[in-house]
């Protein structure tokens, strides 16, 4: 059960063209920077990416979009990316926009072994078109299916050699849900420690869900909207 790999290039080396990927992060917060860079280097193409956002023009998934490696994005919000918009309007890129809670819960369902969920999000909107609607206690809900992803790629703050993960602050976001949801889960961490060094009380993702882990390097952690207040 050797989960530790050398680096991002080794971690993603068998990801083929046409793979379905889950990529953790919210905006640029908590994204697997090292693995995205490795996927760009590898040049793998026609990917389907399940990710809340699509990065910005020159960072995050935006780097993969620029190289035209992405065939389809499944996201809830894609507002910050001009190249994305261009590819979308020109028809080069297929996009499925779904409510953020639905996105999160469809990842979770995959990791919980549940084939589908019911959610009220999107009832009566174009999101509901073609979907089964069920009424529970007088309220309508949409049937939404668990995602099926070939690989989940997540970023954690700390991890151990058994694959247990701990996230930092709001960099947690979709990461633990996607870590549960992939057929093969790759975790990059800021600090990799030996099994036994993390307090079992504080583990967010149990190692059973994680197949490959490595300590990432050179994290840029770019801030999308720097907002500050004045000191008095």
């Amino acid at each position, binding site marked *: 059960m050797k989960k530790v790999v050398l680096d991002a290039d080794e971690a993603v080396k068998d990801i083929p063209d046409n793979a379905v990927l889950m990529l953790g992060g*919210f*905006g*640029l*917060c*908590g994204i697997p920077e090292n693995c995205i860079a490795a996927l760009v280097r590898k040049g793998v193409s026609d990917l389907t990416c399940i990710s*809340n956002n699509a990065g910005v023009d020159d960072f995050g998934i935006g780097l993969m979009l620029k190289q035209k490696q992405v065939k389809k994005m499944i*996201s*809830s*919000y*894609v*507002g*910050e990316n001009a190249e994305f*918009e261009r590819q*979308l309007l020109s028809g080069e890129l297929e*996009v499925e*926009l*779904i*409510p*953020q*809670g*639905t*996105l*999160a*819960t469809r*990842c*979770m369902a995959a990791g919980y072994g549940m084939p589908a969920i019911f*959610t*009220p*999000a*999107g*009832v*009566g*909107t*174009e*999101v509901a078109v073609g979907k089964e609607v069920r009424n529970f206690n007088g309220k309508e809900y949409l049937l939404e299916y668990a995602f099926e992803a070939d690989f989940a790629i997540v970023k954690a*703050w700390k991890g151990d050699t058994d694959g247990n993960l701990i*996230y*930092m*602050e*709001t*960099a*947690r*976001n*979709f*990461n*633990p*849900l996607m870590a549960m949801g992939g057929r093969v889960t790759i975790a990059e961490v800021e600090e990799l420690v030996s099994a036994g060094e993390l307090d079992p009380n504080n583990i*967010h993702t149990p190692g059973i869900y994680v197949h490959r882990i490595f300590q990432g390097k050179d994290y840029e*952690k*770019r*801030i*999308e*909207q*720097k*907002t*500050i*207040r004045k*000191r008095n």
Partner: protein
Amino acid sequence: MALTKEQIAKRIARELRDGYYVNLGIGIPTLVANYIPEGINVVLQSENGLLGMGPFPFEGEEDPDLINAGKQTITTVPGSAFFDSALSFGMIRAGKVDLTVLGAMEVSENGDIANWKIPDKMVKGMGGAMDLVASAKNIIVAMMHSNPKGESKLLPECTLPLTGVRCVKKIVSDLAVLDVTDKGFKLLERAPGVSVEEIRSKTAGKLIIEGEIPEMNV
């Protein structure tokens, strides 16, 4: 005089009650946090995974791992908690969040809201808005009464793709405070110096006016 964005936020802040858990959307709703009345304690929920959002950080103290749903750098207040996105929308779906404040492009007289898409022009996505409006117990919309073209945003029916149906409870615009009722928009208050006639002429949906309409106190 029509209200400024800050005054809209200030008026909405008067709807807050002690102990409320509140989700504030992007834009005018975010400003509501600046006007929380004295003696009222509310906990701000940010749907990317935080309860207990604090103010923006001081220069040099920004933390890239700590952002709000608008991707802005923020801080936490004592008693805050982090969680994943499924849990975040779990608490929203389960009705634990007392009040949601969000912006809108259009609201219809039966409470439908459109705020995520303009076909062929703006396709950024709904983010968490559809989840929020489908489950929130109380939804207040903060918006301008008319769009930049001067057309009413309070309509008999929305023309843009919907975010949610029959969900908006109250609207605070630059001109008025209105409840959304079974019978249409019910005018409650008008902005200082704005006449009932002006509000009537700028409200395309059904407007209910009963008795004297007081001026807002902002």
